[in-house]
């Protein structure tokens, strides 16, 4: 779609929300190699970088870090941001140059299950389905009642 916008001359930008675990996949890096060559400055990756994937810590499974530097050496702009800080996120979004020829990666550092005491940092919730009670408790802790 980013390439289509370039071909058609449309001004929209493509945002890809992805995870750090997903960066295990070779196809991610195939896209990362292609985008700068095609000067896809309209392409923005946001990596939800919570440090966990299905069976453990990302860094114990595949050598992802330093992730921001990897994108830089592949010819991308890259920024690191606190993924829970909306102000920081907005500032980054506004600072991405619209007419850049470089694609941009935003590494958003996050905590899996943040704000829910019984989920935060517990990777079992990668698979576990919350019960109705769990949902009620989580919503209360997040102030969503």
């Amino acid at each position, binding site marked *: 779609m980013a390439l289509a916008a370039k071909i058609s001359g449309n001004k929209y930008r493509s945002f890809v929300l992805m995870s750090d*675990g*997903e960066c*295990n*996949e*070779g196809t991610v890096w195939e896209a990362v190699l292609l985008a700068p060559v095609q000067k896809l400055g309209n392409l923005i990756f946001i990596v939800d970088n919570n440090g966990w*994937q*299905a*069976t*453990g810590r990302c860094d114990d*499974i*595949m050598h992802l870090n330093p992730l921001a530097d990897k994108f830089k050496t592949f010819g991308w702009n890259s920024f690191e941001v606190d993924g829970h800080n909306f102000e920081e996120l907005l500032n980054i979004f506004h600072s991405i140059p619209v007419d850049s020829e470089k694609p941009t990666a935003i590494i958003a550092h996050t905590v899996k299950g943040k704000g829910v005491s019984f989920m935060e940092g517990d*990777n079992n919730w*990668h*698979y576990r389905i919350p019960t109705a009670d769990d949902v009620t408790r989580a919503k209360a802790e997040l102030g969503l009642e």
Partner: protein
Amino acid sequence: MRDSCSRELTCIARSDPRIIILSGDIGNHMFDGFKAEFPDRFYNCGVAEANMISVAAGLALSGYRPFVYTFAAFDLTRCYEQVRIDVCFQNLPVVIIGLGGGLTYAPLGPTHYICEDISILRCLPNMTIVCPADQAEVMASLRSSLDHHGPMYIRINKKNEPCIYTGEPDFSLGRAQLIQDGNDVCIITTGVLLSEVIRAARILEERNISACVVHFHTIKPVDEIMLREVFSRFSVVVSVEEHTLPGGLGGMIAEWMIDNRIKSSDLIRIGTGDYFLTHCLSQKEARDHFGISADLIAGKIADGLNK
């Protein structure tokens, strides 16, 4: 099936130091027993299936017996070229365990369930395809893979499958199993759907239709002797599979019928539809949706027999 698979691999690894397990970032805690006993024989290759298959090929070329374990939807399709060239072309003894081949993961949607796995593997030279019906057959197929000198795909369900065999199954690669005899129609099936087919046969019995049930746990190479026997006895043969019709069990039988000029019998094929589910369903709901649960199978067969 998932747990019996890990238990059996742990068991056979004790006497066979060539066994290595590769996982594609799944099976959290499932292989803890194996990892504790054989810490240098388990490798989590991450969410990177193409590389994992190539790693398996390298291990097999070096004399090891790798078992690759991840979702069937991932360990075949993401890495088809590696399965085709690295493993099948070189005819290497790599066992690919496809967790959730069929509708097991229908609750997770079309990214995770797969009803095309048998079709895409049937056309690969050297590939052996096995679909065990229950836990005992999973264990038997894992054991038999060690005496097999080529690529093998073992399609397994997740958990809570009905037990078909009371004792040790009389399992032999490439040889179909007569589950129960009958006179009016023969139902051929494969894998965990066997339990539904057995129930369908009971429902048919109540309608005075006597059904023979044959389980083809090995789809490739196919048991041609059994096919000949079935088609010489029955004027109506029904294939039932938790798989799409193009290229699956029924497709294989139809090809065999054409090649062998079988004109005296009709074949009725029952399987999943040639479209993706766009909403999440439980395995049971998805079976109902596609008409491959026991009562719907029985209804289709009765209609096919015009009774």
